[in-house]
């Protein structure tokens, strides 16, 4: 029995991706007529967006277009004044952030939100918090089931660490890691939650070319091999156009175009928003 808990070599397929597929990881998001205002600023203006299961949808748009605000609304940080958000048919407009994480909406942030004073592993353990199944009483006595849960999830996290190629830094403090690595840790945290819907806010911003290549590789594998539903907010158009199934373009809080990468690339309003009014 004890042998089960020996540190194992990586089998190549993280069990969190292989074990729970199909209905359990179903992700259908619908945003309807979402309007968010900050005083005089309309950050989001009647946004409609739907995300289907297994899709990689990108949201692009100039700075201040409201991309981050949309993610913040979906993950419950901002409360929109009007409109509805539903996830797998359930209305989630008024759920709290932690509840949304619990039902399977994971994300990364534009300005990395991690715990710099903790190790990579501790960060990921925190991110996996909702999956640890024991209560305070059991924890306070460190009963056998607590120990087993801790070991079990540790194994899951180790597989994830292997998947993201972070073996060498698992015990390092996040605060001391280079920016690009921290972005990867943040992805690791988001994945540790085992989200049905993964939202990434500018994961490619400010990282080196090599790190970008790695990140693209991870995202593509996640999306294609493991059917992970992803919303990607990104400025880097060449990446967006090559990996997305669908692209939505925002400008001044309005969705000005949506469709396949090809369609969007040639959309006149998009060209106008990006290049300015050249007429």
């Amino acid at each position, binding site marked *: 029995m004890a042998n089960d808990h020996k540190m194992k070599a990586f089998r190549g397929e993280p069990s969190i991706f292989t074990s729970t597929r199909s209905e359990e990881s179903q992700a259908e998001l619908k945003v309807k007529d979402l309007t968010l205002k900050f005083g005089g600023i309309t950050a989001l203006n009647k946004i409609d967006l739907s995300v289907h299961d297994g899709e990689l949808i990108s949201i692009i748009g100039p700075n201040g277009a409201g991309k981050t605000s949309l993610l*913040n609304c979906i*993950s419950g*940080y*901002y409360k929109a004044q009007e409109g509805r958000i539903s996830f797998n048919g359930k209305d989630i407009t008024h759920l709290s952030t932690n509840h949304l994480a619990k039902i399977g909406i994971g994300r990364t*942030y534009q300005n990395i939100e991690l715990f710099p004073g903790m190790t990579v592993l501790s960060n990921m353990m925190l991110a996996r918090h909702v999956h640890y199944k024991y209560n305070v009483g059991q924890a306070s006595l460190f009963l056998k089931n607590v120990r087993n849960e801790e070991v079990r999830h540790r194994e899951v996290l180790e597989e994830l660490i292997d998947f993201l190629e972070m073996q060498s830094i698992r015990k390092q403090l996040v605060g001391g890691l280079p920016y690009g690595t921290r972005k990867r840790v943040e992805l690791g945290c988001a994945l540790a939650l085992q989200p049905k819907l993964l939202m990434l806010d500018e994961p490619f911003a400010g990282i080196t070319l090599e790190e970008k290549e790695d990140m693209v590789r991870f995202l593509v594998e996640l999306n294609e091999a493991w059917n992970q539903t992803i919303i990607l907010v990104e400025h880097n158009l060449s990446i967006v156009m090559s990996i997305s199934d669908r692209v939505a373009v925002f400008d001044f809080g309005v969705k000005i175009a949506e469709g396949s990468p090809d369609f969007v690339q040639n959309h006149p309003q998009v060209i106008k928003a990006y290049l300015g009014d050249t007429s």
Partner: protein
Amino acid sequence: MEFFLQILANGISLGFLYALSALGFAMIFKSSNVLNFAHGGLMAMGAFIFLALSVWAGLPIILAFALTLAGSFTLGFLLEKFFLRPLIKKTLIYAIMLTLGLALMFRGLLTFIFGGDIYSYPKFLPETLSLKWGGIQISAVYVAAFIIGAVSLILFGLFYKYSSQGIYMRSVADNKPAALSLGVHVKRSFALSWAIAALVCAISGVLFGIINGVSVHTLNSIGLKMLPVVILGGLGSIRGAILGGITIGLLETFTGGYISSSLQEIMPYIVLVFILMVKPYGLFGLVETKRA
């Protein structure tokens, strides 16, 4: 009716003193988000410095008062420089706990030197200052407090609004990183807000000393009362601090007058808990959405 009016007058006068004192509290909170638990200690320091200078050293009142102000200003400045500044980059709770440490130090030091007794200042306020209005009476010290308080409020208001240093301080209070990037000397701004706060504490400490007698214990508990005052007004709003001060003053005198005098001291805190339940960001405060 006369009783009611007298209590009303007492409440407003007391409230005005609270407001003045809360100004010092709010100033530190506004600039650095620190809850200053050494507020009462600073008030006591001011009151005892004045006592030592005026009674023991026998200096003329005006000179003693001026020296007290200068001393408190320096004290506040030094406190920030040596104790608070090393913590600027750390989490807030360290700074808050540090002020608890300072509170203990002031209390210990003053009780060691002066004991737990209540001292009183010589009578120096002219009796002509007191107001009589039918049966209602407002004693000289309250009138003096009102004058000093009003003058200080106007001075601070002008300072904040028009002097360049005041504008810097407001900018720091509003957005520290932005102010830093514009080249505002944030450290100086913090130091100055502590210095001014200590000065305000000294003024209000002396005034409370005139009313209640100078005692470490009383001044400390008045210092704590700044928390209900600023919560009522909404943390970090100077106008709120003034309104909160007057509200708490009225609340206390009315409780003392109509319900029970032992409940008077505790009433602000009961109201505080109640406020937290129904209107946590104060009667005049704002809630803002934090960026994620």
